[in-house]
């Protein structure tokens, strides 16, 4: 340890206490981002300590990456410089929960699973059924902007985060929004914090709107000989009066991945063996409500599935819901664990173009002689996993070729594309944040307002922000 890092450690110790500073390189490996370890890690206990640490970092020009459970540090680009991991997991309190008002305030380090427990007592929940669910924190989930199958009905975090407190890059504590379910006072700064990977501020408090849990939830899996027919069911449901909570389309290999041992390890819930038939596309849809609503939903879904040419449809018993549901939710971690160099593209398009996007992606991937698996959310968001057999220069060149073709095709079809996950060593070779965007210049200016010294997760975000 050199003199500079000793000074840094001693100052961090002053702020957060000796047991909350990590300087031992062996332990710092846990905070690695794309192969880079920080110079130190600090675990503050309060938002005041966070502000103090950021002020210190700003004065010393130290770059800071906020971290939670560290499940999604592989997203985005590696930081240009990584001096300090700001581990917020000690800020793990539920600050306030008012079930009657449908509001919940939590600190960023609060594990989502614990929230579930708190809310269940009042038959409420926050519809964040996100990947890495069993470990993820509220802060990391919001900062990474990952979505959930439940967005079909409940929307994404931007629809139910009511307000936030955060520390900006100059160490100032600020907030926006509030803790009521409806509010238009001031600019919605918290909207830009969602999915910003910590590049605009360190989130210190999040206010959520909560939702009542539906009376019961039932999930169905319909299998189809082609993706076209599976999508046809999606379109029929969209035109019907049904209001599914989730609606996901799985390619045959996605079905295989979700039925694998890896999947069982990540999400141990039972998986009905017949549900995901071999070599078939599948539509997984769930509905909420009471007896008659579920009966009607089932009836209509079965009818529409038959009209769309389904090979079969299985109703999962209510007790099996978490398993099947859980595995579609965990598609990304399952795909990442299933191969040496899984590269996952996130593609979006208007629903009527999903077929073209899927076809183009499959064609480009087949041409590059790569295996692939796709999970498409009914609203038009597709997770397309390229699955090379190994992490090699040759595999990278195939992946690059396929990814570039897919991104170009997606742009031509008016869609959005990015590569949120790939092997660390490939980050610099792949267009991680997708094509250049017209509003990038405004984003850069916004970053300068929030983080004038560019110390917050520098380089992690789109366009090198």
């Amino acid at each position, binding site marked *: 340890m050199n003199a500079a890092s000793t000074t840094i450690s001693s100052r961090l110790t002053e702020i957060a206490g000796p047991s909350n500073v990590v300087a031992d390189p062996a332990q710092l490996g846990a905070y690695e981002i794309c192969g880079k370890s920080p110079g130190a890690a600090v675990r503050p206990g309060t938002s005041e300590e966070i502000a103090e640490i950021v002020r210190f970092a700003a004065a010393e020009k130290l770059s800071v990456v906020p971290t939670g459970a560290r499940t999604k540090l592989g997203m985005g680009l590696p930081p240009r410089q990584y001096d300090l991991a700001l581990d917020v997991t000690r800020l793990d309190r539920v600050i306030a929960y008012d*079930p*009657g*008002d*449908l*509001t919940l305030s939590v600190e960023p380090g609060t594990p989502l699973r614990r929230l579930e427990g708190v809310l269940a007592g009042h*038959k409420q929940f926050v519809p964040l059924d996100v990947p890495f669910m069993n470990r993820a924190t509220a802060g990391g989930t919001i900062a990474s902007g990952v979505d959930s199958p439940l967005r079909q009905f409940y*929307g994404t975090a*931007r629809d139910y985060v009511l307000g936030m407190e955060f520390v*900006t890059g100059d160490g*100032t504590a*600020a907030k*926006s929004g*509030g*803790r*009521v*379910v*409806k*509010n*238009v*006072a*001031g*600019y*919605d*700064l918290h*909207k*830009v914090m*969602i*999915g*910003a990977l910590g590049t*605009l501020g360190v989130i210190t408090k999040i206010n959520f709107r909560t939702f*009542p*849990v539906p*009376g019961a939830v039932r999930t169905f899996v319909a299998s189809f000989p082609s993706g076209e027919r599976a999508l046809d069911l999606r*379109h029929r449901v*969209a035109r019907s*009066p*049904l*209001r599914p909570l989730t609606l996901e389309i799985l390619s045959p290999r996605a079905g295989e991945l979700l039925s694998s041992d890896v999947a069982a390890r990540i999400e141990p819930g039972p998986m009905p063996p017949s549900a995901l038939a071999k070599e078939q596309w599948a539509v997984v849809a769930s509905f909420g*409500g*009471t007896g*008659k*609503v579920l009966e*009607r939903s089932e009836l209509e879904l079965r009818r529409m599935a038959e009209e769309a040419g389904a090979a079969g449809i299985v109703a999962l018993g209510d007790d099996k819901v978490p398993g099947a549901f859980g595995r579609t939710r965990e598609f990304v971690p399952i795909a990442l664990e299933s191969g040496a160099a899984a590269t996952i593209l996130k593609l*979006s*398009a*208007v629903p009527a173009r999903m077929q073209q996007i899927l076809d183009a992606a499959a064609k480009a991937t087949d041409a590059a002689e790569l295996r692939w698996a796709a999970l498409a959310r009914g*609203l*038009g968001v597709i997770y397309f996993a390229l699955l090379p057999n190994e992490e090699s220069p040759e595999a990278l060149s195939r992946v690059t070729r396929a990814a570039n073709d897919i991104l170009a095709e997606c742009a031509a079809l*008016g869609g*959005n594309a*990015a590569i949120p996950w790939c092997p660390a060593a490939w980050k610099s070779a792949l267009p991680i*944040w997708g094509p250049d965007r*017209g*509003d990038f210049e*405004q*984003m850069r200016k*916004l970053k300068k*307002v929030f983080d004038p010294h560019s110390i917050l997760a520098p380089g992690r975000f*789109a*366009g090198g922000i």
Partner: protein
Amino acid sequence: MNSRLLHDLKKLLGRDGVLHKPEDLMLYEYDGSVEVARPNCVVFPRTTEEVMGIVRLASRHQMPLVGRGAGTGLSGGAIARQGGIITSFARMNRILEIDAENQRARVQPGVVNSDLSVATEHLGLHFAPDPSSQKACTIGGNVSENSGGPHTLAYGVTTNHVLALEVVLPTGELLHLGNSALDAPGYDLMGLFVGSEGTFCLVTEITVKLTRLPEATKTLLAVYDSVDDATETVVEITARGITPAACEMLDGWTIRAVEDYVHAGFPLDCAAILLIEVDGLREAAEYEGAEVADVCRLHRAREVRVARDARERDLLWKGRKNAFGAVGRLSPTYYTQDGVIPRTKLPATLRRIGEIGQKYGFAIGNIFHAGDGNLHPIILFDARDQQQFRNAVAASDEIIQFCIEVGGSITGEHGVGMEKDRLMPLLFSEADLDLMRRVRDVFNPAGLLNPAKVLPTPKGCGEIHVRPVPATASGPFSV
């Protein structure tokens, strides 16, 4: 007004594209709020290019620039507080595209809110945000103000339904935010721009989501002798796993004012009524309607009516939607507040509002979105009387103060505008406001776009900027 600028504007927009005579400008000095200020001229662009031209001219002449839809706003957002050019979007009122398959519509900012729902009804779709002014207010205005309405509890507010914006920055730059596909990579600038109250940009095109119309709707009216019982009903409905599409409350005073005018059959001697709507699949509406009726009775509703058909439903809603019109008959002027409270605090808040009314000698009616705790106290006063006007503002401030004390907000859907900018420090610290100011300056660096709105100007703190207005200026619409 600078004759060179006027000449240039006429050259850009044609003679019929510019108003500048005092008698014409008078029509544009107010909106739905109680504020007044006269612009130097009003311009009517037809295209995005013309909007860009206007912005460049305003910038060259250092003239303030304010966007305006239908002028139904309730916080002075469309008023030229420091004079300058009002850009009316009245002529950019075309629905450009309806894409039923993908449930999208692309519209110009001047399209009237309900016109989009009317145009898409035959497809089984609608534009969900439904402010009570929806027959007049524009979607551009909705975007600027992030407007709500009675059905936001289940369906969300404007920001939840906007997918993409084409905007012109005050620098003259054209910018596209979001697109019709979801999750554009990068910061959610669109989310930041919606609700920026015309201080970041002029919106020239909007892509919105269209929502499928529910198969069935059940509308219930529950009559209470106590506000507490009505409040408990609202909380219990959620506890039973039901999110009503709408959940509106009217207090006794308002009920009597409304009934006298609308004849909706509201009982005259009650303390409160709840108007609750549930929708969805037939089976869901049936079940939830029955559950809601059960909860109402359990919490001592003395009467529960269920609309049997569309006509009865319309009658129940007529009472709610015309409430502000009814109140308008009773007083030369009224002032509608828009505070938000955690909804369990309703009884205490209504008691406090009653006390404040007594203190200043005003009748205050209460109509509100009980489901989301968004209040609309209506203070009746005579604006021709300077003292009454000052008292109305003071009473309103006391109500807002209470909303903040119980953990609420100063505005749920009307916006801050020029009405509540001086109240912002009650909710936000100097650091919060400074950050918001610097964010605004990113997009509006010279401060020419809608100046002196949303954020308090340092010297403006505590000042009352408004002057009394004639009775006719009181807006017929409110949420």
